[in-house]
């Protein structure tokens, strides 16, 4: 019986079902706010998914995810605001642009091992932000880009209401998860895990590790870019802060909280941290302090994140059953 309650499939189905029916049972007075918050959590989850792919699975810590997210957001926003392009086309172009940037950053930096990739990606992100700040006519400069239209309709369905945009973002998030799940449970996932553990071993059996890392970084960049494009149109306004490396760093913190290298961790982390910071902000401005405190406590007591907690409970229950 314990086995059934602890099976991964059951939890997965319950989680997905919860996300699907969650908006139907909300009290009307706080419904718009909660839907907004949940959508924001999903958008952050997309960023976490992209970071999880390159860091959690391939073991390459990228601090450019914020910049790639912002690239997708800005490219899509500029296309829709200045050129009146359909959102869905702009969305794809945003993902593509981020992917291309990933390729450009990846080729020189992924050859190096150790901390260089971290430094190069962060440096790139800082350059990117100053480019955005200085391309005032296109990006709105430091004041930001205003009036980004919401997601355009598919057929007859429009996405102006909160609940429809909630489901739209959720569906796109499911696609993200599906892609990453397929990668993890395939030869590519095995290859990435081997790469993360021992690059020398991979090379000695004939795996082109540079190509594998580059490929993964590009996919991760595309995911970040697509998430960003959606983020921009969801918020309706973008500032250079939405492309800063802090975003990527926050995503890293969220991942640590949720559990690095796991799919549920990509949503549990942002959900916990964003809920706490919302709650903390409504009392006093101690959100940042709380974040720091939680991170420290987690690293001490739960180094594998909240998802790791399930592992501990599972072990405990099995041992308890044996007794």
């Amino acid at each position, binding site marked *: 019986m314990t086995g059934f309650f602890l099976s991964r499939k059951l939890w997965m189905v319950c989680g997905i079902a919860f996300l699907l029916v969650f908006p139907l049972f909300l009290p009307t007075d706080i419904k718009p706010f909660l839907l907004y918050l949940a959508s924001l959590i999903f958008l952050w989850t997309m960023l976490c998914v992209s970071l999880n792919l390159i860091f959690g699975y391939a073991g390459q810590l990228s601090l450019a995810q914020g910049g790639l997210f912002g690239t997708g957001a800005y490219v899509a926003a500029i296309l829709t605001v200045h050129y009146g392009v359909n959102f869905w086309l702009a969305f794809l172009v945003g993902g593509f642009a981020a992917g291309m940037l990933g390729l450009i950053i990846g080729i020189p930096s992924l050859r190096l091992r150790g901390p260089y990739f971290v430094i190069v990606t962060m440096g790139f992100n800082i350059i990117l932000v100053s480019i955005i700040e200085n391309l005032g006519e296109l990006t709105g400069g430091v004041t930001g880009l205003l009036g980004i239209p919401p997601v355009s309709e598919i057929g007859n369905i429009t996405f102006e209401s909160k609940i429809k945009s909630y489901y739209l973002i959720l569906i796109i998030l499911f696609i993200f998860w599906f*892609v990453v799940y*397929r*990668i993890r449970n*395939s*030869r*590519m*996932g*095995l*290859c990435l*895990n*081997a790469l993360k*553990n*021992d690059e*020398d*071993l*991979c*090379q*000695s*059996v*004939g*795996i*082109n*590790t540079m190509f*594998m890392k580059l*490929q993964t970084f590009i*996919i991760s960049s595309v995911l970040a870019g697509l998430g960003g494009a959606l983020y921009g149109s969801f918020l309706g306004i973008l500032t250079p802060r939405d492309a800063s490396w802090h975003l990527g760093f926050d995503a890293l913190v969220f991942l640590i909280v949720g559990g690095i290298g796991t799919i549920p961790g990509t949503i549990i982390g942002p959900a916990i941290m964003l809920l706490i910071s919302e709650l903390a902000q409504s009392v006093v401005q101690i959100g940042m302090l709380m974040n720091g405190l939680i991170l420290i406590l987690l690293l001490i007591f739960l180094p594998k994140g909240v998802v790791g907690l399930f592992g501990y409970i599972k072990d405990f229950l099995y041992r308890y059953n044996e007794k």
Partner: protein
Amino acid sequence: MLLEVKNLTKNFGGLRAVYNLNFSVEKHKLVGIIGPNGAGKSTLFNLLTGFVPPTTGTITLAGQRIDSYRTHQIARAGISRTFQTNRIIANETLMNNVMVGLLAKTQHGFWDAMIGLKKEEEDRFQYRCREVLKIVELEEMSGRVASGLDQEQQKRLAIAVAIVNNPKLLLLDEPTGGVNVEEIDKLTKIIRRIWEEGITVCLIEHKIKMVTELCEKVIVINYGEKIAEGTPEEVMKNKDAIRVYLGEENVA
């Protein structure tokens, strides 16, 4: 001639790790490389597998110059190796560990992850992995996670990963390092079995007994230079070899 090394030299700054080394390995031979610690044996393996580029000299594998190749290209050309320290993927099963050795041959890109492999292809690879696990006598543990293995089992797993792709030449870097005396015989038997499968084997070893039992040819290296070469009996009689290996006073 399977492997030919000519005038191979490697300098690390002022340190001469390998100097003007010439030797060759015939097809289907078992060759032992011995020498004291720091003699340049591991550097030689690193040169052969492209982990470090040679300063000068050429390496030819079955008529193909490989000294400018990158590591994974050399592996694809047919040289496979194990490492002195055990390199295994601790959080994967034995089966998946061996599968890593096959990855270069299978499709492992993004599109293949999305589409998935064909059933018969999958079965073929599984079968091959099981076959190799049988050779190293780990078959019954194939579903277990590799972190539970002891030192000697890890050595055998690393060998399985190295041979799964049918290399032309297998380089074993101290296959018995850190292994109990009782278990050495088992490893010796396994290495012989691999050799019988048709794979040329070249091993670095400190245990002279194992080398004399297994190898048809022994190369002695000291300070990066070859000082003796021949059958185990010849080398054991060679004064230079005895001097570096057993000490000055043993030279009769």
